[in-house]
């Protein structure tokens, strides 16, 4: 065995442990840890694995409901879809690895979240992603965008899971720290959900999948749980390398096995690899495990026990099988060309005992490491400059003099421009379920049973967060993110069921960041409760800072909903001429935190529009009713960029463009009416305006017929009878379609 370093406080600190945690390690063991044991404590108690800063706040979230089968705490959450089917889903961050190595970082993010889903016995069918970069004027961020998109595509396309939607943001706050959040959803028989259990004393523990190499050691503790600085490039080797082909074979082998009854429990080896998976399985079952590292399939020669335990090599699973089924289980993996070996047994003494080369290198009690990891009550403080930032005297903001120019500029802005350049690099069709893919409010995916029988059920999915709103008002902005994701789902006609969240924040050791995090979590709780969408899974990514500059608080929210029968659904674009356009919801004089204010006035200020959750829930019910009763064909919510951008999107995003003529009557400042971002509004197109207006009145939702679809232009007339906008669809499309490719083309000319 190679020589191991001296174990002391200095080494513990290097491993990211605090002095108190180091004391605690020695107390739990009653002795000094071995080098391998120190490594285990370091990863298991890292922010990434233990959620120590956020745990006490997350406990307050609503996690139950009649639809919830499994809430947070498992690999992913599960909700019932009826007829014995369940959806399993989660979103997770892979921010730091993607900044260091964009292609591999984002690819392994996709691979990791997909493993979380099939680990539970579900077939992964749909991926979303939420990715955020600095400005595209910066060559580094053009490179990062291209790398991240290539990584998501190369993994998702090859592994055979459709990428059906997502969101992309560009803002200078991500210049030193991009965000890559990956979401996946799978379908499973509700009776056949598998958990990370290691029960049944004497049962074999089986390692399956890729061989273990030296990649990704301390990815969770060093890369994901610290800020970026000048040493970040040196951390490149802590990024893992993905192999989607192996994962595809692993999916098929695991799902084949899970149809039988040989498997007791299963866990993927993600963050902190073999260590985390074995501890979690034993902890969940109140058992112990003894393992022999010599049997672990190894990619490199001469690996130490420390390396074998902490490697984050991808595409690996740990299974506990029924005793006597060792050969039948391994045979399935072998047929798919994968390694599978028995590496240990379940024991009854609650100890994790690991041997290597005849020596015992780890012998520690499972529970104090896994279940009783540290929990911190970090101080919080409202950022002193926030109140100042929220002040916005609209009277002092010069009114928009060129509404047409403003609309074209907003559509050309990469945040609002068409993302087709991105999603055209993803396979949206594989597994034959995609009813609506990228480019609309929410994706819609038809559900099949495990045997391939199609059902009338479809899942609607949307992922959302407006970081500008969250920066100016962490609680209100987060409520708005939940409301928007649920509204997008409702716009297809689906009933929002539940949510998953990925909380991307700065350094929690700063009280201002902790305050943002607490506000956001409380906001999620408030909105989830009111909208009936409990939190069933989630992930926290902290330390998103570089040189002390944090990102905007970015609580990414993904909501899923159920639509049945899916044959009736609404789309987010105009489909034909001559339909009535109805605006649901009220437009108020609100420009705080708007895209218009940022782009046209260079101001990131004011209080963003507040969500009325009661109105929001009635609105969602109205949309579902309209689709069910058949008088609603088009529903598109107004969000960033306001009503004018929403109308332009309705005109442009269908298979064929359809123009519109709209007249507005509200007596507020014209720029607020066109570009304000008042929440809770939806543009609807219908052949039966009377039905929409009557149903809206019954639901106490303000509604007004504002125009008709048709023609080759988008024309908007104001209450002063003046034409505010009169732009050809061609011109609008040029601005919107060119926003991203035009900026990336600069890369080519620089090469």
């Amino acid at each position, binding site marked *: 065995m190679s020589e191991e370093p001296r174990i002391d406080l200095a080494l513990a600190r290097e491993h990211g442990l605090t002095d108190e945690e180091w004391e605690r390690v020695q107390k739990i063991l009653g002795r000094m840890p071995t080098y391998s044991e120190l490594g285990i404590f370091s990863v298991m108690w890292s922010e990434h694995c233990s959620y120590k800063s956020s745990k006490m706040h997350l406990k307050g979230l609503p996690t139950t409901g009649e639809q919830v089968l499994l809430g947070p705490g498992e690999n992913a959450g599960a909700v019932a879809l009826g007829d014995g089917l369940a959806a399993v889903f989660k979103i997770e961050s892979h921010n730091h690895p993607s900044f260091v190595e964009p292609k591999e970082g984002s690819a392994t993010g996709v691979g990791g979240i997909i493993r979380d889903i099939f680990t539970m016995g579900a077939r992964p069918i749909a991926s979303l992603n939420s990715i955020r970069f600095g400005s595209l004027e910066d060559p580094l961020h053009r490179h990062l965008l291209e790398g991240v998109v290539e990584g998501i*595509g190369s993994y998702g396309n090859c592994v055979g899971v459709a990428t059906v939607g997502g969101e992309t943001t560009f803002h200078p706050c991500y210049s030193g720290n991009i965000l890559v959040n990956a979401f996946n959803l799978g379908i499973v028989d509700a009776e056949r959900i598998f958990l990370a259990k290691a029960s049944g004393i004497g049962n074999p523990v089986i390692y399956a999948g890729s061989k273990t190499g030296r990649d990704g050691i301390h990815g969770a503790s060093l890369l994901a749980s610290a800020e970026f600085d000048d040493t970040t490039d040196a951390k490149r080797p802590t990024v893992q390398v993905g192999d989607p082909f192996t994962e595809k074979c692993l999916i098929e082998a695991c799902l084949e096995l899970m149809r039988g009854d040989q498997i007791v429990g299963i866990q993927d080896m993600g963050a902190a690899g073999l260590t985390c998976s074995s501890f979690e399985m034993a902890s969940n079952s109140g058992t112990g495990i003894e393992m022999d590292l010599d049997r672990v399939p190894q990619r490199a020669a001469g690996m130490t026990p420390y390396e074998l335990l902490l490697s984050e090599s991808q595409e690996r699973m740990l299974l506990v099988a029924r005793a006597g089924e060792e050969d039948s289980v391994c045979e399935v993996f072998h047929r798919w060309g994968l390694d599978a070996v028995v590496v240990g047994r379940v024991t009854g003494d609650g100890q994790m005992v690991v041997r290597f080369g005849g020596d015992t290198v780890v012998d520690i009690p499972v529970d104090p490491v896994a279940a009783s990891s540290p929990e911190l009550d970090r101080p919080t403080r409202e950022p002193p400059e926030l109140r100042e930032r929220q002040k916005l005297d609209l009277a002092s903001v010069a009114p928009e003099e060129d509404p047409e120019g403003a609309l074209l500029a907003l559509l050309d802005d990469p945040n609002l421009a068409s993302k087709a350049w991105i999603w*055209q690099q993803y396979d949206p*069709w594989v597994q034959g379920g995609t009813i609506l893919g990228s480019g609309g409010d929410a994706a819609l995916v038809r559900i099949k049973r495990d045997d391939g029988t199609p059902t009338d059920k479809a899942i609607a999915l949307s992922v959302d967060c407006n970081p500008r709103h969250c920066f100016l008002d962490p609680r209100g902005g987060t409520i708005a993110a939940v409301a928007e994701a649920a509204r997008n789902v409702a716009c297809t006609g689906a009933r929002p069921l539940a949510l998953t969240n990925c909380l991307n924040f700065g350094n929690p050791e700063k009280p201002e960041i902790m305050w943002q995090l607490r506000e956001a979590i409380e906001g999620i709780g408030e909105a989830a409760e009111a909208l009936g969408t409990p939190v069933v899974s989630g992930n926290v990514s902290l330390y998103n800072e570089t040189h002390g500059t944090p990102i905007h608080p970015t609580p990414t929210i993904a909501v899923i909903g159920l639509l049945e029968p899916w044959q009736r659904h609404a789309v987010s674009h105009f489909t034909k001429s001559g339909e009535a356009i109805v605006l649901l919801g009220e437009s108020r004089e609100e420009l705080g935190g708007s895209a218009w204010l940022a782009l046209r006035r260079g101001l990131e200020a004011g209080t963003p529009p507040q969500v009325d959750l009661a109105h929001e829930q009635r609105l969602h019910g109205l949309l579902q009713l309209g689709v069910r009763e058949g008088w609603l064909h088009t529903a598109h919510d107004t969000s960033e960029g306001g009503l004018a951008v929403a109308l332009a999107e309705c005109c442009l995003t269908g298979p064929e463009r359809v123009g519109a003529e709209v007249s507005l009557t509200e007596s507020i400042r014209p720029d607020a009416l066109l570009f304000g971002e008042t929440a809770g509004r939806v543009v609807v197109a219908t052949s039966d305006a009377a039905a929409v207006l009557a149903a809206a009145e019954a639901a106490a939702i303000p509604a007004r017929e504002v125009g008709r679809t048709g023609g080759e232009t988008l024309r908007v007339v104001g209450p002063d009878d003046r034409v505010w906008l009169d732009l050809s669809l061609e011109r609008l499309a040029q601005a919107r379609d060119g926003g991203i490719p035009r900026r990336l083309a600069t890369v080519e000319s620089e090469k």
Partner: protein
Amino acid sequence: MFSVLQFPGSNDDRDMEFALKTVLDSPARLIWHGDVELPADTRAVLLPGGFSYGDYLRAGAMARFSPVMAAVKRFADAGGPVLGTCNGFQILCESGLLPGVLRRNRDLHFISGWSHLRVERAAAPFTSRSQVGDVLRIPIKHGEGAYHLGASELAELDANGQVAFRYCEPDGTVSAAANPNGSEANIAGITNRAGNVIGLMPHPEHAVEAGLGGDDGLRILGSLVDAVGGAR
């Protein structure tokens, strides 16, 4: 019986099976790449899309060595219908069952989207449900889809009527703008000389239900069912 081959890394195998079995009500099953024989009742062989062997080395380059491919070659030589889409097309080219190669797309990106295909050959067993000049709307999704063949062989391919589909505008015009990937002469699909082996980059199995974007794929898969008497 339709035999849909399953290589490690095949992704559209179950979609192809679904299209034949559930939508077209014809018996179909997945055949493991390691089998050395095709089932005796095989009436047609389908090579689905995906990333066989991860597309490592080169798309389709490894799959041609799979044991089942020798049986597929014998089946094709005896006149049996063989259809390969996307990765299946790449495997058929690598195996020598079809001429030419598929190179990386012109812009070097993976691309997905709806494509329009002009039918250039309307004949059993693959395109009897169309007329020459018909336009089909079928998705593409690939990184290596630029069909390439030497100039003289290309002329020969054309003269023999082996070009089955070309990328076109929605109105049927074959233009440079309608070429998504840089394929020679907008070629999207070809047959062998005898006409019983076809390869195409577009995915008919992803266009089989009107509610899920369109069902023009049935014009191709349905022709095959007509040809071999697919009903159970």
